[in-house]
């Protein structure tokens, strides 16, 4: 098992390298020149001389492979360069903003599991009766709701009309409620529907019939047999949803003025701040790969078949 984890961690390096090269090339072949953005934000007229000077100062005039080589050497010492716009080391800014996003993403993930599991269970337990229909209706709405529109509805309802919650910013717990809900509703609904489907499928299995035949009480049949098997698809889905939550954070942070890494990345992308974009994609890739590894480990721990038969990576 340990050997498998080490192998996956080693796999992380080549993938990150490939992603960084791909992103580097795509960025520099992109449409516009970051020097222009720098001049614009500095209120300096973009004459040819000024553009040339800034390109030289930012090291953009070197040939592409040389730029990448310089970046790579420095990156290996965790120095991801200086942001074109803020003049601060890129990694410090990203790590400064990361906790806010992790707080939002983490809470959204917790909220997803907190609501998806009971809802899924409720729907599967009373299949066909009113709780099942209610849950299916709610989750169906959740799946079809655009998160940015939901965010505005929440703002209009809770801070504009009822005035209970502050509409934006970070700090007091009240400011957490709406952004988390706006991000989590979609993945919560998806997971609830998934859990319901996998519960129904599991409860139809023959080993459940056999368990009941052995006289086990219904409660133990559900906990010991149905649930134990229904967790598996949920684990893989949750792994995928970490990515979706970060995607959601991108949009939601701009609406709620949440000082997270998502909003920072959006502004960096709009202002062509290459070092920040480069570092952000690497950070994101690393985070997602680790999440996938975590999911696989959970899966192997929960499902002996994959553990003992050798996991198909």
């Amino acid at each position, binding site marked *: 098992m340990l050997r498998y984890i080490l192998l996956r961690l080693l796999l992380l390096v080549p993938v990150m390298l490939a992603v960084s090269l791909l992103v580097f090339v795509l960025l520099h072949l992109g449409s516009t020149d970051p020097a222009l953005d720098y001049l*614009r934000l500095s209120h300096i*007229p973009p004459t040819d001389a000024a553009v040339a*000077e800034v390109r030289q100062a930012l090291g953009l005039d070197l040939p592409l492979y040389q730029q990448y080589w310089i970046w790579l050497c420095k990156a290996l010492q965790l120095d991801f360069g200086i942001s*074109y716009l803020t003049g601060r080391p890129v990694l410090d*800014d990203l790590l400064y903003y990361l906790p806010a996003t992790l707080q939002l993403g983490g809470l959204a993930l917790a909220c997803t599991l907190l609501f998806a599991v009971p809802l899924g269970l409720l729907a599967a337990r009373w299949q066909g009766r009113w709780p099942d229909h209610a849950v299916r209706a709610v989750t169906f709405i959740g799946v079809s709701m655009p998160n940015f529109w939901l965010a505005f509805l929440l703002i209009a309802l809770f801070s504009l009309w009822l005035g209970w919650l502050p509409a934006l910013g970070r700090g007091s717990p009240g400011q957490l409620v709406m952004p988390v809900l706006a991000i989590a509703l979609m993945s919560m609904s998806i997971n609830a529907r998934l859990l319901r489907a996998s519960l129904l499928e599991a409860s139809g299995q023959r080993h459940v019939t056999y368990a009941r035949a052995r006289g086990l009480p219904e409660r133990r049949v559900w906990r010991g047999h149905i649930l134990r098997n229904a967790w598996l698809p949920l684990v893989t889905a949750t792994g995928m949803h970490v990515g979706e939550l970060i995607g959601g954070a991108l949009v939601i942070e701009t609406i709620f003025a949440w000082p997270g890494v998502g909003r920072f990345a959006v502004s960096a992308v709009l202002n062509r701040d290459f070092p920040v974009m480069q570092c952000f994609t690497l950070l994101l890739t690393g985070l997602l790969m680790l999440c996938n590894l975590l999911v696989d480990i959970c899966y192997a721990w929960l499902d002996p078949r994959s553990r003992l038969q050798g996991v198909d990576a």
Partner: protein
Amino acid sequence: MKQSSGTLKSALWGLLLVTSLCAHADRAAPTLVYSWPVNAGPLDPRGYAPDQMYAQAMVYEPLVRYTAAGTVEPWLASSWHVSDDGKTYTFTLRDGVRFSDGTPFDAAAAKANLDAVLANSKRHRWLELVTTLERVEAPDRRTLQLFLKHPYYPTLMELAQVRPLRFGAPLAKPGEPVGTGPWQRVESRLGEFDRFTRNPYYWGAQPAYGEVLVKVIPDPNSRALALQTGQIDLIQGAAGEITASTFVRLRDQGFASALSAPLATRSLAINTGRGATRDLAVRRAINHGLNKQAIIDNILYGLEPRADTLFAPNLPYADLGLAPYAYDPALAARELDAAGWQLVPGASVRSKGGEPLAVELVFLGTSALQKSLAEVFQGELAKLGMQISLRAVEEGALVSRQREGDFGMIFADTWGAPYDPHSFVSSMRYPGHADYMAQRGLAIKDQLDQRITKVLASTDPQQRAEQYRFILTTLHEQAVYVPISYLTAISLRRDVVDHVQFGSTLFDVPFEAMTPSQEH
């Protein structure tokens, strides 16, 4: 334009009352709370992005300060003398001025700052004075001499600008801003706020406020909400702090508001070198075809006065009494017909010799205001039989299109005081500008550039005014620009702050002149 359902309005008032009651107003050293989209930055006296100009204007001071009347007044230099040939400027420095770390401000410190600018002239060369400045001398403690390569009349104007020709303590460590200004920056928390307190050694009158807290709020809607809920006391500036509609809504709700004098011109640059706009008649028809007043009243809520000329009359050398292009669609149609742009019955777009009257209007996709204006222009000019295709781009692409002249028409505002008119006009000579690219198609473009060079070097004010008249009149008659409105700074404040004034330039906010109001 009162338009809101009953419950909504009462809810808002309720929200306002609740929050303003609990807003703390500590009496010790009152704090003025302002907001800005981003942090102030390391605040290097000569620094560009990410340093924010409003903060540099608070901490660093110029030799001479630009006034609302468009002239300069003595500031760090109590007096100055210009040699007859206009190439030597001798300044007598104000006595008893000290930096916020207590060290004295003298000729040596001033020379050190200006030498630093000359040393990095590659970066500062965009400012004409930096290329014309030969060397700086400090004969004694209170005398500073600037020697120019050739006479350059806007020297004093460019010395007044926020950067790079202001003065920081030479020995200050980078990131530790030490200036002679009324404020010093004591704390900066990324993404949250920047805190400024009074400079204890300030040579001028101590500001009424003990502290200015500038919160980081990137989004205009969030900024408006912060004002409503008492999280900030003041919204002021001309950089789109809040949208026009929000300004009107808050003003109608009773927030004290003010509009500044014209500071810059919101205008479209028309490409004289490409497509249908090569034809003067087309450019004149565009100027006549846009009902600017209706647009200003509805899109800009009448907040910005209509602009008839490229520079507002209150700017130096700009009061020329040029005949404005009145809104006269009939005249525009006649001019187009006369110029051969026929509207074939059945077609909706005029054409001449097979070429359709189509112009591409490029605008900033992320600016709601430019998007609305672009859509209205498209609608209005369509009535004249002109096909305006809209092209939304983000900031980076807008600048590159301006540089390469890749536009039919493009939003290109003037730089505003104190750059207008001299710096803006001077920049027209260099490729890589929307203006250069727009004027490229004019036959007399070369003559215009020579005239600009001559005006900058002229020492005789009368002759200078003559050159400006020729330049501005030519640009006006050739209809290279469509001036829309004069950009004004807006100001909205909670009733906890008084004596709110506007800075004389687009960038500075005179916090030192503001006082906490007495009633509270």
